[in-house]
């Protein structure tokens, strides 16, 4: 059964700077369904709206981000809600207990003048009342389970290495055993060795707590390593979605093909072709399929209409007229 269901989600950055209006269609009609106990990966070029999607899923809507359309249903059995219709107090309660978040850059997300201990206290204290030593004990236990020395509690963020900081944010996100963890590029800016440690950590947590992890990264190696299912985003939309091995073996969308095909491998020096051109600005998308200016198989139709995300085979969905030859514009649930 699905825990998370996203329907036609459109969240735009609508801003007006000194009279100049601008709309960035960062998430532009996304449908998603995620089941229990699943690691779901989202990949895509930078700036295609991944972080925005994550923020929207968390219900962190602050101007200029505006939800134009869509619904996000969570169903935790004991609690069901559309996160977009909660009031601030309710959504504050949901966070961290049900849905938590690992931010993209751990560099600046920790308060530079507070010790890690205090950060733990304020994050946890906001959701549960703890006895005096209970909280400290819980935190220490959790940290050591994640392989972090308890000394970090006394440290200030700047005293920790990037890897440790990222691990602290992971610890923060997982300590209350939330049902959903949203991880936004949890390992970029980390050393490969540390990155490996962090990714393993996430996997351990998921195996233990059986929660959903939605992980965003554009490192396909990471996806290959951890995800059960992967969605590929391009210009605010999901253009392909399938099981991990399926995507790596049979990418269908031309963009996905480029992506997978251009991945270098040690031991293989053969020439890699990468997708020509560069991604379009989200505030000024071309008509039709947004990939068409870069697509070698572009057809007339591609320049006018946007292909919808359709099932090609079992759990493999693609939005491309090359694949979805039959004209099926049927409504979807």
């Amino acid at each position: 059964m699905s825990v998370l269901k996203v329907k036609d989600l459109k969240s735009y950055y609508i801003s007006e700077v000194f009279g100049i209006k601008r709309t960035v269609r960062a998430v532009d009609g996304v449908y998603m369904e995620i089941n229990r106990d699943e690691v779901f990966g989202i990949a895509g070029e930078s700036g295609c709206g991944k972080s925005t999607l994550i923020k929207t899923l968390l219900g962190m809507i602050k101007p200029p981000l505006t939800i134009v359309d869509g619904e996000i249903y969570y169903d935790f059995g004991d609690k069901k809600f559309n996160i977009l219709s909660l009031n601030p107090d309710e959504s504050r309660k949901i966070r961290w207990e049900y849905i938590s978040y690992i931010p993209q850059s751990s560099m600046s997300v920790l308060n530079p003048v507070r010790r890690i201990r205090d950060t733990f206290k304020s994050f946890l204290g906001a959701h549960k009342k703890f006895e005096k030593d209970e909280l400290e004990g819980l935190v220490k236990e959790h940290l050591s389970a994640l392989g972090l020395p308890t000394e970090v509690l006394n440290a200030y963020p700047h005293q920790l290495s990037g890897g440790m900081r990222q691990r602290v944010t992971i610890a923060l996100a997982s300590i209350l055993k939330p049902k959903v963890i949203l991880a936004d590029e949890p390992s970029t800016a980390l050393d490969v060795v540390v990155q490996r440690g962090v990714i393993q950590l996430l996997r351990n947590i998921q195996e233990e707590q059986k929660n959903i992890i939605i992980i965003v990264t554009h490192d396909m190696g990471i996806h290959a390593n951890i995800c059960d299912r992967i969605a590929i985003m391009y210009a605010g939309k999901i253009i392909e979605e399938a099981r991990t091995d399926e995507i790596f073996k049979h990418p269908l969308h031309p963009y996905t093909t480029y992506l997978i095909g251009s991945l270098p491998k040690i031991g293989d020096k053969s020439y890699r072709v990468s997708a020509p051109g560069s991604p379009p600005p989200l505030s000024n998308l071309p008509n039709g399929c947004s990939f068409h200016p870069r697509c070698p198989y572009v057809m007339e139709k591609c320049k006018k209409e946007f292909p919808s995300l359709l099932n090609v085979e079992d759990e493999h969905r693609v939005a491309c007229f090359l694949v979805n030859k039959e004209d099926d514009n049927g409504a979807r649930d």
Partner: protein
Amino acid sequence: MTFFKRYLLPRIIQYLVVIFIGTTVVFVVPRLMPTDPIQQTIERVTMQGTYIDPDAVEELKETLKELYGLKGTLFEQYAIFWKRLFRGDFGPSFAQFPTPVMELISISLPWTTILLLLTTLLSWVIGNILGGLAGYFSHYRWARILEGIAMFIRPIPYYIVALGLLILFAFIFPIFPVVGGASIGSEFKLSWNLIIDIIEHAFLPALSLIIVGTSTWFITMRLIVSNIVTEDYVSYAQSGGVSNKEIVFHYVIRNGLLPQITGLALSLGQIFSGALITEQVFSYPGIGTLLYRSISTGDYNLMMGITILSIIGIATGVLIIDIVYPLFDPRIRYE
């Protein structure tokens, strides 16, 4: 040890150099003034109507020069000045000859320092907290009202604020006394009555200083906070459901205070030069009037005594802040 050698020592040397420069400036500048303390004394005598025999004037001048220690070249005087300073002696006041400057300062200093210390701290704390709150909750009406009030008060010349308060609360509604630091006939022994009396007298001056000080700190803090709220750590804490109270105090205000600390050090140092206008408006005993009078009577020693005290005060304030700053900002290291 290395901390001492690498950081503290150079910092202290700089501290001493800065004090040296400042002190030298206040030694030299008055001596460039057209006022001559001897002449001032004679003027004081004659302007009041006392008749000095014209034939006695030249001799009188010599005598005074001798007594005031103004004989010799500028450099000799400068040397004597430092010699005395090292003994903590600022010499005798001229206008109150032969009372030592230190004695005059010690009569006025406690009044101002206590008043200014308290009001500076209070307005810093209140201004920053309110500024922080208004900055964080900037979309609420009360925050805008607060901001409006601060914007309105800030530009009113302090003198007018003070005078307005005085007329309002000492004259139209005579709640507070008009003059002085304590009631007539107060016995200066530690007692509740005395404390209450002193507070009553200090209330209006303090209020005026706090109103103006608070609005100044408020406006700066408000600006600082508007930048802090866009920081990642604030949105992260919000995404983590951390309570607003916690965010405002431990995230927003706490970080916003950092740049305000140096400002606090500077204004704390200034308490040694007094608050001239406050003292004048409220007839509050203090060092500001003393300083002002010393300038207009050409009382070099008194003037130097007070300004040097103030220079040392400010420099020390900044030095202390520099040394303890890492306590407030763990990112700063002594480098």
